[in-house]
């Protein structure tokens, strides 16, 4: 950069800092705790732009729908029918932006924060709320680290990656045994940010505990423009089962590379692969994503409420409801329930109320929502789903299953 540029950059930087400082001060005024407010602000921190914007949109949809429903039904009754209002913060997939956005929504008066989809961002974003004494609800970040830091105000709805990995490993063992498929050489591939690393390492451990043979665990960079070399390397190891944990673009790249390289396995078995439980992803990927399994938290498609929400969501947003929207949706209800019981927006009272949560009427393929001391939902559970012909169905366990698993999987060239 030229000297001229540098000379201009200094006043520019000073100006920016001043503006930010003023903006931060501005938020202090409207703080009310025990009086009944007209509006209750809740923070929603997600990746609304950036590489995971496709996930962030669904997060936003879920939150929006829940808030609309709650407000239409009369708001928070114990607080004089106060309406919920969402303060949104876009972290664009970057932890440092997540922290500053969380700071901002808390300054602007959010009584609780929902965040932040990617585990790596959640870790940083929840530090801000913990320090400020504001409750933090985690709909979807499954890394074990999220709840292992001794935080007192963090509540996670999704089952953690350690428990999820154990469930996935036992599902994989049962599925292959039942259908007589060889699972002698399992390859684990995962994206290498906090999310994928946590799932990948836990899954490897859980598979070994099940007595299964893991030939490799390969981390990769989710923001790569091309993953063909990584997939070639996997193919050379000749695995019979591929276990993967991915975000959107990398999942698409891996599947396409497998098809191009004619790399066939007995089963592609996703663990917490968001796009694999997104019906829209399967509609758009067509044959490429057919037959993939995914062990993930799921929706109770059998229940009446599950069917009703699916229909409402489809109508409102013109796309099928996925877990990515359902969990933020449920999280808003968990928060609303706590506000109702606390009868206050006081941080301490709200935290206590959240800790005492016990909700059973949510359409999750899981038990009652209750939190242990670490903030983990003790009713969390993962179900196994499979996409066939672009349609996604839960296939396991029987309690929530709406279809039988399709096995064996046809080779790429036979599709």
């Amino acid at each position, binding site marked *: *950069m*030229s000297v*001229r*540029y540098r000379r*201009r*950059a200094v006043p*520019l930087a000073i100006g920016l800092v001043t503006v930010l400082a003023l903006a931060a001060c501005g938020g202090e005024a409207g703080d009310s705790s025990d009086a009944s407010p007209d509006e209750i602000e809740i923070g929603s921190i997600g990746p609304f*732009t*950036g*590489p995971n*914007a*496709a996930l*962030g*949109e669904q997060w936003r949809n879920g939150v929006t729908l829940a808030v609309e429903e709650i407000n239409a039904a009369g708001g928070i009754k114990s607080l004089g029918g106060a309406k919920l209002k969402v303060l949104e913060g876009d972290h664009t997939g970057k932890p440092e932006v997540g922290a500053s956005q969380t700071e901002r929504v808390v300054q602007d008066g959010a009584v609780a924060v929902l965040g932040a989809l990617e585990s790596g961002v959640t870790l940083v974003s929840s530090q801000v709320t913990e320090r400020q004494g504001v409750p933090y609800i985690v709909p979807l970040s499954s890394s074990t680290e999220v709840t292992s830091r001794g935080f007192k105000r963090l509540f996670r709805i999704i089952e953690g990656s350690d428990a999820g990995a154990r469930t996935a490993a036992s599902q994989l063992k049962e599925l292959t045994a039942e259908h007589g498929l060889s699972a002698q050489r399992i390859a684990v591939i995962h994206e*290498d940010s906090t999310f994928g690393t946590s799932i990948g390492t836990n899954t490897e451990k859980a598979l070994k505990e099940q007595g299964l043979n893991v030939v490799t665990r*390969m*981390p*990769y*960079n989710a*923001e*790569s*423009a*091309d*993953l*063909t*070399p*990584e997939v*070639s*390397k996997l193919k*050379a190891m000749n695995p019979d089962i591929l276990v993967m944990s991915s975000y*959107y*673009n990398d999942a*698409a*790249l891996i599947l*396409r590379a497998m*098809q*191009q*390289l*004619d790399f066939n396995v007995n089963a592609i078995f996703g663990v917490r692969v968001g*796009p694999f439980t997104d019906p*829209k*992803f399967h509609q*758009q*990927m*067509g*044959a*490429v994503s057919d037959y993939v399994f995914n062990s993930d938290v799921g929706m109770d498609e059998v229940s009446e409420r599950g069917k009703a929400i699916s229909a409402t969501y489809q109508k409102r947003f013109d*796309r099928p409801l996925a877990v990515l929207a359902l969990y933020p949706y449920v999280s808003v209800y968990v928060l609303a329930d706590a506000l109702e019981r606390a009868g206050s927006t006081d941080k301490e009272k709200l935290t206590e109320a959240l800790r005492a949560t016990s909700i059973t009427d949510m359409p999750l393929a899981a038990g009652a929502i209750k939190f242990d001391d670490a903030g983990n939902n003790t009713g969390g559970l993962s179900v196994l789903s499979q996409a066939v012909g672009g349609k996604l169905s839960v296939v396991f366990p029987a309690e929530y299953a709406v279809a039988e698993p399709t096995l064996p999987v046809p080779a*790429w060239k036979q599709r």
Partner: protein
Amino acid sequence: MLYAQSIVSGLLIGGVYGLIAVGLSTVFGVMKIINFAHGTIMMVGMFVVYYAWRALGVTPYVSLLFVVPLLFLFGVAVQLVLVERVIDAPPDQQLILTMGLSLFLLGGAQLLWGADFRTVDVPYGNAAFDLAGVSVSVPRLVAFVAAGALAGGLFWLLRRTDLGRSIRAVAEQPDAAAAVGINLPWTRALTFGIATGCVGVAGTLLTPFYYVTPQVGEPFTLIAFVVVALGGLGNPAGAFVGGLLVGAIEGLGGALLPGSTKQLLIFIVFLLVLVVRPQGLFGRRVAL
């Protein structure tokens, strides 16, 4: 065999990196402007290809017929209406302009089309043949060959035609070029149009085997910056060779090193080049 496969895959996609970088490098060479919107403009082209296929059933390669002119005109318009205003402004203002354009296009695309993933599902999208044990993807090979041909055509244009001579004159000495009667704004607009046309070709060639989303251009832009610096700023021929080099190194890195460390290999080479040949592998003087 594994390394051969990785290098081949890397080289093939490297052709596309090269073509993207050629446009970036040309714009920098002539206007001294870093176009941050380069990748997002490619994304716009890819959406045009996608909707042409989706709505009208036009196969991606045929879309070249209208995507390239469309992006060319778009580039000309961007230069005349926006960039021309900051052509003599300090670099920070130019950066803010192209960055702003990039954010505008990104946000607009997300608003208009949503952030979802889309794929153009054509029968040849996953076609591949076996070459001595190495699987070669047909659409990637097509992309590679077409990118090479187009880059070659661009050098020919720059070296051998009147337009090319005017572009090079504007790059070397804008004032002197103006003095001998070259229309500066118009030449710059054509240059920008050629660059966006190139990136339109790159985007179109990607669609049969890639996906389309508003964010699709970002990783490519990032790589293109490394490629451009590697090949020599403002040296389109160097940019193309740099693209191949980065593709091959990245492919090899993916096979050798775990996870994100595959980038390490690229940046080691990059640092070495910066230390040993700060002007880039091929310097500045060769092409423009």
